[in-house]
């Protein structure tokens, strides 16, 4: 009996009313992947627009709505909640030896907030004066005066924040209170550590964006003036508040992906993780330091010179714990008996693409370079390397790693590898071209471009189409596996964390007997046990 068949209710109600953390994880997975493909489609439309200069397919205003909606969906509905809400919900309780999270009903409520927020954002596209055209950042003062349906879209993002907060609150309490006997802090799998750091950002930073978005709505409704220069308000303070949340939010996105990679690499290198404590505490260090660097999004905004220097310095410091992780992964691989099966392939791709994303990030952390690169395609390329090459690849790797455990089915490994080829090639064509275009001076968010950027745009567009094909192959393979896949074994990859020690798919309450933990994780012992 597994969680997929057992339960008090039947049919769709057994899912949408379930408080089982595993079912909620699957609910999130299905909703998110659907939204992901809508945003991919919008991305493809944007690339079609950039194919030609002479006969644009879409009106400029439509293009503005495209990049706003693409950004809002990808950031707030896929990358941000992605790994915590899907794999965190599903595996955190199992990995620490618990039957569920601390507050199962709040957990379900968080999914409803997610759906409600999504519904509001979608409603903002089709009601009122048309879809928001501000970009996902909702910068004041334009967001205060834009005639489009900004208020509703902003309110949707606000509601999505509740979902994020509840997940974070649940995870912190679960990790503090529900670890199995003997599961000391330093015996927790590193995925749990990364979720712990993430959860703190969710709890402490999300309210800041919450109040900021509420203020935008209050400005639009009552004209309170706090961001309105005509009334003495300072739009720069909007940017400060926005990035006080949204920069740490970048770490909400990347930390759990790093955590998943940290699970996958030792499993496929058959070797214990190198520098357990360094990785564990670097997660917390990233969470903390990452909360203090928000100003590097504002170097050209007219902020004071001293603030520029401080934020630039802090930005370089935050690279240290990120690099610690990369070094530890490579050190784990060293002299391991590496087996490159699909999860590992995508995990290694993560390391490669994230390294490019991270290093281009450092380039922008330097003030002089930033002035040249700000608001160009370089930025767009950089954050896609981090968000998509990082979090996205981490999500795919995690999905391939845990899919057999979650659904009890095996997918076709060859097709998973085969889909990697267009994904990898298309990805680098699209986003590396953007890095070059930005360096040449192509500004972001323009619906068209000057002739000198023509070649770059065509390469990027073709890459984008190849990438989209790869993504469809990737997910089609998994959908087919759900229908026709062979039954998965309990431990297909030879993992050693707790989720591999229970049946596949997991039973309703994970453990019939709560295990007692008396050793560190990641002990690979080929001879015994």
């Amino acid at each position: 009996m597994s969680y997929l068949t057992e339960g008090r209710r039947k049919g769709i109600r057994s899912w949408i009313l379930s408080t089982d953390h595993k079912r909620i994880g699957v609910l999130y997975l299905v909703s998110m992947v659907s939204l992901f493909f809508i945003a991919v489609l919008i991305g493809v439309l944007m690339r079609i627009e950039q194919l030609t200069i002479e006969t644009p397919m879409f009106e400029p205003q439509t293009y503005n709505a495209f990049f706003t909606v693409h950004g809002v969906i990808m950031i707030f509905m896929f990358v941000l909640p992605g790994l915590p809400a899907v794999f965190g919900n599903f595996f955190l309780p199992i990995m620490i030896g618990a039957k569920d999270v601390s507050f199962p009903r709040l957990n379900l409520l968080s999914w409803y907030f997610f759906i409600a927020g999504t519904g509001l954002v979608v409603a903002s596209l089709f009601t009122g004066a048309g879809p928001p055209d501000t970009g996902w950042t909702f910068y004041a003062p334009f967001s205060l005066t834009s005639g489009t349906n900004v208020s509703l879209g902003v309110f949707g993002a606000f509601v999505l924040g509740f979902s994020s907060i509840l997940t974070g609150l649940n995870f912190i309490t679960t990790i503090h209170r529900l670890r199995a006997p003997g599961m000391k802090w330093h015996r927790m799998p590193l995925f749990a550590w990364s979720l712990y750091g993430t959860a703190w950002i969710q709890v402490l930073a999300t309210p800041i964006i919450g109040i900021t978005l509420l203020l935008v709505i209050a400005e639009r409704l009552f004209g309170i003036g706090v961001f309105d220069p005509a009334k003495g308000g300072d739009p720069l303070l909007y940017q400060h508040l926005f990035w006080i949340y949204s920069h740490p939010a970048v770490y909400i996105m990347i930390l759990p992906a790093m955590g998943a990679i940290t699970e996958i690499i030792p499993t496929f290198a058959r070797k214990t993780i190198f520098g357990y404590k360094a990785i564990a505490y670097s997660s917390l260090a990233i969470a903390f330091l990452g909360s203090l660097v928000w100003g590097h999004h504002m170097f050209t905004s007219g902020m004071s010179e001293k603030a520029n220097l401080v934020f630039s310095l802090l930005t370089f410091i935050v690279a240290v714990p990120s690099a610690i992780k990369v070094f530890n992964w490579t050190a784990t691989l060293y002299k391991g008996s590496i087996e490159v099966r699909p999860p590992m392939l995508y995990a290694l791709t993560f390391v490669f693409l994230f390294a490019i994303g991270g290093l281009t990030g450092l380039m922008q952390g330097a003030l002089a370079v930033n002035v040249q690169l700000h608001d160009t395609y370089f930025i767009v390329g950089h954050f896609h390397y981090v968000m998509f090459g990082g979090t996205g690849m981490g999500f795919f790797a995690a999905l391939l790693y845990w899919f057999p455990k979650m659904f009890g089915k095996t997918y076709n490994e060859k097709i998973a590898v085969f889909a990697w080829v267009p994904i990898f090639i298309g990805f680098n064509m699209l986003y590396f071209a953007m890095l070059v275009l930005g360096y040449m001076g192509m500004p972001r968010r323009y619906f068209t471009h000057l002739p000198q950027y023509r070649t770059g745009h065509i390469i990027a567009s073709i890459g984008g189409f190849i990438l989209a094909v790869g993504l469809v192959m990737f997910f089609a393979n998994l959908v087919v596996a759900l229908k026709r896949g062979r039954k998965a074994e309990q431990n297909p990859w030879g993992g050693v964390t707790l989720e591999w020690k229970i049946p596949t798919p997991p039973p309703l309450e994970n453990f019939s007997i709560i295990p007692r933990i008396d050793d560190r994780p990641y002990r690979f012992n080929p001879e015994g046990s």
Partner: protein
Amino acid sequence: MSTSSSTPSLVHKDYEGGKLGMWLFLFTEILLFGGLFILYSAYRARYPLEFHEGGQHLNAVIGIANTLILLTSSLTVAISLTALQKGERRRSLLCLAATIVLGLGFLVNKYIEWSGEISHGLYPNSPLMAQRPQGDQIFFGLYYTMTGLHGLHVIAGIIALSVMLGFVLRHKVTRTDFNKLENAGLYWHLVDVIWIFLLPLFYLAA
């Protein structure tokens, strides 16, 4: 080997976990108001004279009266929990009811105060406001936002405490199972703490 029963109801009565969860929620409230305190500090630094002047238009008497009301209501809700833990259910119920009444009193004062100011034309986007110096407009914008958001929290707190009153009456919250009342009390105290900061920032700014 420690075991737990495998009933499918999944009832973990984890008292400390429940409290930790509530504190984490309070942290989000602190940061929610924190965003506004960040704005306040920035604008106070920019418009010190206007904030000083703006404070003179507020009714300090009502502000101070509301402070006393909230401090006292914090006392009664704290006593209510101790009384329940000691098994003095009647006293607990009375104190809880007193807290709710005090909360309502706070709202009545707030209504009198706001309607007075609005009748003088002192509200965001009013014709009078448009003629005032910019720092003044910001002061009143923040004043209405911060006290308004706080007022919404008072309303939420009153609702939560009323639900608790019902729970205690129906023996759903008892001497041994008081986590819910404790959490509602924590929420109410936090609302009080925020007001403790609002008083000097606005009413005593003059």
